[in-house]
C-alpha cells in the first residue's frame, strides 16, 4: 500500500519532469508563489520551518525523504530564512554512499556553510575520501565542495589529492582540479606557491578545455608578476593563432566562433604581457591583426572578442596598423543601435585615447548621443570617457554636465563618485577663480555630505592662499566674491555640514576684510547658523571660532565691539555645553574679547591662516625647568630610540615595558623557520624608522590649535603632500594623461597658424572659429545645440574634416589629420608620436609606462621608474631578500638598506610613494618567481612533454594532432 502511494506521488510529479519531490513541497512552492504579501510569505515559510524541524529530527527517515527535506531547507534559506538547524543533516548526507544523496548533501553544504564554519571539520574527511573515489562524478562533486568549503588551514589536508587529480584520465576532472588549485591560490597564494609550475605544465594538456582552464590561474599569476612569464609569450601567441584558425575540434565552436572564451582569456593575458614591452608586443601584432580581420562582428561573442582585441591593442606597445583597426571597430560599435555595443565602444574609446587622443574627435556626436541617452549605465560610462579627455578648454562644459547629472540622481554611491570627479577636474583645470568657487559651491550644496572633508579643507586653503599668483588684488577679489556668494547661500535651509563649515570659516576669516559688510551683520548670520544647526557640533565650533575671529579683527582695528544679544546667549549656552571642545572655544572667545588691541592682534593676526607657525620641537623653553628638576634629583629622560636598544633592562615604566616586549616579540617571529609569508616581513622592519612620525605629529597639531585656534590649519597643513599650490599657475593637481591631450591640440593649432596665435589662446580661438562655421555645415539633421556641445567638448577638428570644401582654410587643412589618416597611416603615427613627445618631453618608451597604474603620475624626465622596478624584481635579488628574512634578525639590516636605497635611486616623487606598495607585491610573488628560476627546463619535464606529444599523436579525440606542436617545440 505504501509503495503504491509512492508511485502515485511519483506520477504526479513526473509531469514536472523533475528529480522528484513530494506533494508537500509542490504545495509549499505553490502557496509561496500565490502569497500576496511579504508577511504572508513569511508566515508560510515559518510554518514550513516548524514542520521541517519536527520531521527532520524523527528517527529512521527514509533516505529519499531526507533528501527532499534538505532541498526544502535550501529553498527556505534562499527565501531568506534561517535553516541552520538542518545543517548537520546536510553534512551527514555527504557521507552517504548513494551518489544522488551525496551530491544533494554537497550541494546543500556548499550553499549553507562558509569556509570557517565549525561543521567543516566533519566534511574534510569525507572530501578526502571522495577525492580518491573511482567514480569521477563523486570526485567532481567533492572538487566542487573543495572550491567552496576549504579555507587556508584545511588546504594542506586536500592539496595532495587535488594535485594528483591533475593527472586524471577524465579531462573534466583535470579541468576542475586546475580550477580548484586556482581557488586555493585565491585564498592563500603561499599555500600553492610551490605548485605553480603545474599550471604551466597543464598549459600543454592535450585537451583544449584543460588548457583553457589553466589560462584563468595564469592570468592571475601574470597580473601579479609579469616578468617571470615573458617566456610564455610565444606559446600564448601560437595557441591563440591556432585557436583563431579553427584548428580546435568543432565542439569548441560557439556560434561559429572558435573557442571564444579561450581567445578572450589569451587576449587578456597578452595585454598584460605586452604592456610596456616592445619586444613582446611585436610578436603579438600579426595574430591580433588576424583576429581583427577574421572576427565576425554580427554575433555577440564576435564583438566580445573584438572588444578584447581593442583592450589588448591599447595596452601593448602601440602599433599604427592595429590602432587603425581598433579605431575602425570602435566607430562600428558607436554607430550600432545596440546599447551594449555603444557601451563597449565608449569604454574602448576611453582606452584608446590614452594612446591616440585625436581619435575621440571623429566620434564627438556619437559620444554626445550617449551622454544624452536615457540609459544610466551608458551615461556613466560616457562621463568616465569625458573625465579622461578633460582639458582646460572644455572643463567648464564637462563639469557643468557632471554637476547637472549629479543633481538629478539619487544613488549616493555614484553621487559621491561623480562629486569627487568634479572636484578633481575643477582643481586641475579651472579656467578662473570665480568659476572654481562657483563650481565648488554647487558640488557642496548638492553633495556636501558625500564629499571627502579634505576637499573642504582644500577649498578653504585655496581661498586663503589664492591661486599661487602674487597678485593680492586678485586674491582679495576672490575672497570677497566668496564671502558674497556664501552670505547669499547661507540663508538657504538644510545645507550640508561640510559646506557650512567652509562658509563659517570663510566668513570668519574674510567676512570683514573688504569692509563691505559690518561685523554685526556677519555675527548675526553666524549666530543664525549655529542656532539652525544646533545639533551639529562641528558646525557650531566653526561658527564660534568665526565669531571670535570677527570680534578679534574688530578689536585689532580699534573699533568698539558690541556683542549682539543672541551672540551673547549663544556663547553662554556653549560655555555650559557637554562638549569640551565647544566649551573651550566659548571661553576662549570670552577671554579674547576682554584683551586689548595689541594682544588680540598677536593672537589673531588677520589673514594668517596659512602662515607657517614656528614650533620649537625641542621645547627649548623648558630647558631651565628640566635643569631645575634634574638638580632636584629627577631621572633624566631617555630618548625612545635608545630605550628600544636596551630591551633587557627591566626598570622601565609599564608603558615602555609593553612597547619593549612588543619589539621583542616581533623580532622573535623572524627566527621561526617559516619560509612562506614573506609579505609579513617588511612592516615590522620599517617600524623603528617610522616611529618618529606619529610621535611628532599630534604635538604639532595641538600647538596649532592653541596658538591660532583654527581647526582647519592643521588639517590643511597635512594636505600639503597632496596638493602643491605655490608657484603653479592656475592648473593645480597632478597631471593626467589628459594633459598631453590638451597640449597636443594646442601644439597642432600652433603649427597651423605659424605662431601667430599665442599658445594659451589657441584653444579659445579654435572654438570661436568653429562656432562661426556651424551654420554653414552641410549636415543639417544634427541639432545646433548638439553641435555646440560637441564643439565645446572636443577640439572641433572633425568639423573641418567633415567639410572638405573649406579645405582652403588654413586651420581646417592642418588640423584634419584624421582625414589624412586613411591615405597615409604612417604619417599619422609620426605626427602622433611627435605631438606626444612634445607634450611629455619624454622619449616614447617612457610614455608607454604611463599606462602602468603605479607610475602614471611620474614626472621624472629621464629616469624610467618601471625599469627601476624591473631591476628590483631581478630574481636573484628577490631570493636574497627572502632568504634574509628567513634566516633571522641578524640579517635584517640588509633589507632595511635595500629599502632605504630605493627612494634615493628613484628620483620621481610619485615613484617614491608607490614603491613600498609594489614591494609588498614583489615579496608576495617572490616565492613564485624563485620557483620558476629554479625549476626551468629540466630533463624530467622534457620527457613528460615528449610523452604528451606522442600521446597526442595517437589520441583520436583531438582532430589536430599538431595543435600544440609549436608550443611544445
Amino acid at each position: 500500500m505504501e509503495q503504491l502511494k509512492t508511485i502515485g506521488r511519483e506520477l504526479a510529479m513526473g509531469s514536472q519532469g523533475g528529480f522528484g519531490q513530494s506533494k508537500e513541497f509542490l504545495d509549499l512552492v505553490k502557496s509561496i508563489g500565490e502569497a500576496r504579501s511579504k508577511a504572508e510569505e513569511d508566515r508560510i515559510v515559518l510554518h514550513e520551518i516548524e514542520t521541517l524541524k519536527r520531521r527532520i529530527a524523527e528517527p529512521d527517515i527514509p533516505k529519499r525523504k531526507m533528501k527532499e527535506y534538505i532541498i526544502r531547507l535550501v529553498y527556505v534559506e534562499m527565501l531568506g530564512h534561517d535553516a541552520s538547524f538542518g545543517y548537520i543533516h546536510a553534512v551527514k548526507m555527504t557521507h552517504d554512499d548513494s551518489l544522488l544523496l551525496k551530491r544533494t548533501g554537497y550541494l546543500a553544504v556548499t550553499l549553507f556553510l562558509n569556509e570557517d564554519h565549525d561543521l567543516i571539520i566533519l566534511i574534510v574527511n569525507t572530501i578526502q575520501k571522495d577525492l580518491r573515489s573511482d567514480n569521477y562524478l563523486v570526485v567532481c562533486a567533492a572538487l566542487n565542495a573543495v572550491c567552496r568549503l576549504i579555507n587556508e588551514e584545511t588546504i594542506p589536508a586536500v592539496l595532495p589529492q587535488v594535485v594528483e587529480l591533475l593527472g586524471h584520465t577524465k579531462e573534466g576532472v583535470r579541468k576542475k582540479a586546475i580550477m580548484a588549485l586556482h581557488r586555493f591560490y585565491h585564498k592563500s597564494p603561499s599555500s600553492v606557491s610551490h605548485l605553480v609550475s603545474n599550471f604551466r605544465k597543464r598549459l600543454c594538456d592535450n585537451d583544449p578545455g584543460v588548457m583553457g582552464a589553466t589560462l584563468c590561474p595564469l592570468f592571475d599569476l601574470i597580473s601579479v608578476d609579469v616578468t617571470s612569464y615573458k617566456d610564455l609569450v610565444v606559446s600564448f601567441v601560437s595557441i591563440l593563432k591556432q585557436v583563431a584558425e579553427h584548428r580546435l575540434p568543432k565542439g569548441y565552436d560557439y556560434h561559429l566562433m572558435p573557442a571564444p572564451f579561450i581567445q578572450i582569456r589569451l587576449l587578456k593575458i597578452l595585454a598584460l604581457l605586452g604592456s610596456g614591452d616592445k619586444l613582446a608586443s611585436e610578436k603579438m601584432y600579426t595574430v591580433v591583426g588576424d583576429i581583427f580581420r577574421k572576427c565576425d562582428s554580427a554575433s555577440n561573442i564576435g564583438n566580445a572578442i573584438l572588444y578584447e582585441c581593442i583592450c589588448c591593442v591599447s595596452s601593448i606597445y602601440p602599433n599604427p596598423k592595429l590602432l587603425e583597426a581598433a579605431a575602425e571597430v570602435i566607430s562600428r560599435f558607436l554607430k550600432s543601435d545596440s546599447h551594449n555595443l555603444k557601451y563597449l565602444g565608449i569604454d574602448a574609446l576611453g582606452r584608446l585615447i590614452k594612446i591616440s587622443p585625436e581619435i575621440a574627435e571623429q566620434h564627438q556626436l556619437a559620444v554626445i548621443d550617449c551622454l544624452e541617452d536615457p540609459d544610466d549605465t551608458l551615461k556613466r560610462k560616457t562621463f568616465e570617457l569625458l573625465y579622461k579627455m578633460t582639458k582646460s578648454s572644455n572643463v567648464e562644459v564637462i563639469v557643468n554636465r557632471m554637476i547637472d547629472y549629479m543633481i538629478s540622481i539619487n544613488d549616493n554611491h555614484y553621487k559621491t563618485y561623480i562629486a569627487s570627479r568634479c572636484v578633481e577636474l575643477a582643481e586641475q583645470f579651472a579656467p578662473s577663480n570665480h568659476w572654481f568657487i562657483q563650481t565648488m559651491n554647487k558640488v557642496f550644496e548638492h553633495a556636501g555630505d558625500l564629499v571627502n572633508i579634505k576637499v573642504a579643507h582644500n577649498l578653504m586653503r585655496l581661498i586663503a592662499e589664492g591661486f599661487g599668483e602674487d597678485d593680492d588684488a586678485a586674491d582679495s577679489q576672490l575672497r570677497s566674491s566668496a564671502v558674497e556668494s556664501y552670505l547669499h547661500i547661507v540663508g538657504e535651509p538644510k545645507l550640508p555640514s561640510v559646506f557650512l563649515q567652509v562658509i563659517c570659516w570663510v566668513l570668519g576669516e574674510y567676512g570683514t576684510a573688504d569692509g563691505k559688510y559690518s561685523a554685526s551683520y556677519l555675527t548675526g548670520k553666524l549666530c543664525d547658523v549655529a542656532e539652525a544647526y544646533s545639533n551639529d557640533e562641528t558646525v557650531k565650533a566653526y561658527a564660534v571660532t568665526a565669531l571670535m575671529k570677527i570680534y578679534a579683527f574688530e578689536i585689532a582695528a580699534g573699533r568698539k565691539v558690541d556683542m549682539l544679544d543672541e551672540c551673547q546667549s549663544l556663547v553662554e549656552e556653549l560655555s555650559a555645553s557637554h562638549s569640551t571642545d565647544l566649551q573651550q572655544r566659548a571661553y576662549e572667545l570670552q577671554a579674547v574679547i576682554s584683551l586689548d588691541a595689541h594682544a588680540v592682534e598677536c593672537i589673531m593676526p588677520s589673514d594668517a591662516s596659512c602662515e607657517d607657525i614656528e614650533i620649537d620641537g625641542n621645547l627649548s623653553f623648558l630647558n631651565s625647568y628640566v635643569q631645575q628638576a634634574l638638580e632636584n634629583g629627577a631621572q633624566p629622560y631617555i630618548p625612545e630610540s635608545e630605550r628600544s636598544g636596551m630591551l633587557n633592562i627591566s626598570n622601565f615604566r609599564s608603558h615602555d615595558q609593553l612597547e619593549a616586549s612588543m619589539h621583542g616579540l616581533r623580532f622573535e617571529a623572524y627566527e621561526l623557520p617559516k619560509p612562506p609569508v614573506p609579505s609579513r616581513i617588511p612592516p615590522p622592519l620599517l617600524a623603528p624608522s617610522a616611529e618618529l612620525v606619529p610621535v611628532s605629529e599630534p604635538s604639532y597639531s595641538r600647538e596649532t590649535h592653541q596658538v591660532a585656534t583654527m581647526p582647519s590649519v592643521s588639517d590643511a597643513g597635512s594636505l600639503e603632500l597632496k596638493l602643491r599650490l605655490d608657484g603653479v599657475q592656475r592648473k593645480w593637481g597632478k597631471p593626467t594623461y589628459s594633459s598631453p591631450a590638451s597640449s597636443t591640440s594646442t601644439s597642432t593649432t600652433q603649427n597651423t597658424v605659424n605662431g601667430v596665435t599665442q599658445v594659451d589662446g589657441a584653444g579659445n580661438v579654435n572654438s570661436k572659429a568653429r562656432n562661426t562655421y556651424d551654420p554653414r555645415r552641410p549636415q543639417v539633421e544634427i541639432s545646433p545645440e548638439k553641435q555646440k556641445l560637441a564643439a565645446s567638448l572636443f577640439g572641433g577638428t572633425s568639423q573641418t574634416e567633415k567639410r572638405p570644401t573649406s579645405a582652403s582654410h588654413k586651420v581646417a587643412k592642418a588640423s584634419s589629420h584624421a582625414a589624412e589618416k586613411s591615405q597615409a597611416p604612417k604619417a599619422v603615427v609620426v605626427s602622433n608620436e611627435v605631438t606626444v613627445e612634445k607634450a611629455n618631453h619624454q622619449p616614447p618608451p617612457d610614455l608607454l609606462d604611463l599606462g602602468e597604474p603605479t607610475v602614471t603620475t611620474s614626472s621624472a624626465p629621464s629616469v624610467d621608474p618601471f625599469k627601476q622596478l624591473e631591476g628590483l624584481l631581478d630574481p636573484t635579488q628577490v631570493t636574497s631578500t627572502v632568504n634574509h628574512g628567513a634566516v633571522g634578525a641578524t640579517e635584517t639590516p640588509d633589507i632595511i638598506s635595500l629599502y632605504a636605497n630605493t627612494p634615493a635611486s628613484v628620483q620621481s616623487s610619485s615613484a617614491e610613494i608607490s614603491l613600498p606598495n609594489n614591494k609588498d607585491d614583489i615579496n608576495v610573488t617572490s616565492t613564485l618567481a624563485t620557483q620558476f628560476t629554479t625549476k626551468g627546463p629540466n630533463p624530467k619535464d622534457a620527457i613528460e612533454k615528449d610523452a604528451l606529444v606522442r600521446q597526442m599523436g595517437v589520441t583520436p579525440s583531438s582532430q589536430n594532432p599538431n595543435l600544440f606542436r609549436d608550443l611544445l617545440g
Partner: protein
Amino acid sequence: MIRAVMVMNTQGKPRLAKFYDFQPVEKQQELIRSVFGVLCSRAENVSNFLEADSIFGPDSRLVYKHYATLYFVLVFDGSENELAMLDLIQVFVETLDKCFKNVCELDLVFNYCKMHTIVDEIIFGGQVLETSSTEVMKAIEEISKLETASNSISLVPKSVSGWRSR
C-alpha cells in the same frame, strides 16, 4: 572571476542564488533585493550592463538578461568580458531550455536541484567551465543516469523511473 549567479522573477522573488564568495543569509537577501531594485527600474531598450560597485563593492560589474518573467543575473569582476558574460547567460538559458523543453519559471521552481547542477557544470568556483550547451547537457544526462543507477534502494519500478528521468 564570477561572483554570483542569480535568477529572480519580475516580482523580485529569488529563483536561484549562488554566490562564489560566501555571503550570510541576510546579506544574500539584501543583495538580491538591491539588484532587483536596480533591475526593475531600468527601461526596456537599454544596455544589459550595470556597474554594481554600490552593491557588490569595488570593481564589480553586472550583466542581466530579461526572459519572460525571469531576470538572469551574473555578477563578476574586471577580469571577465561583459559581452562574453551575456553569452554565458545565453548558454545557461539554452541549456535550461534543452533540459526542460520550453523552460518556464515553474520548471525552475520545481527543479531547483537540477538547476544547481546545471550551473555547476557551466561555472565552477567562479570560473567559466563549459560554454557549449550540448556538452553541459551530456554531463547532466550522465549525472542523472548514474544517480538513478546508484539509487539502488529505490522503491519505484523501472518503468516509472525511466519515465521520470525523461
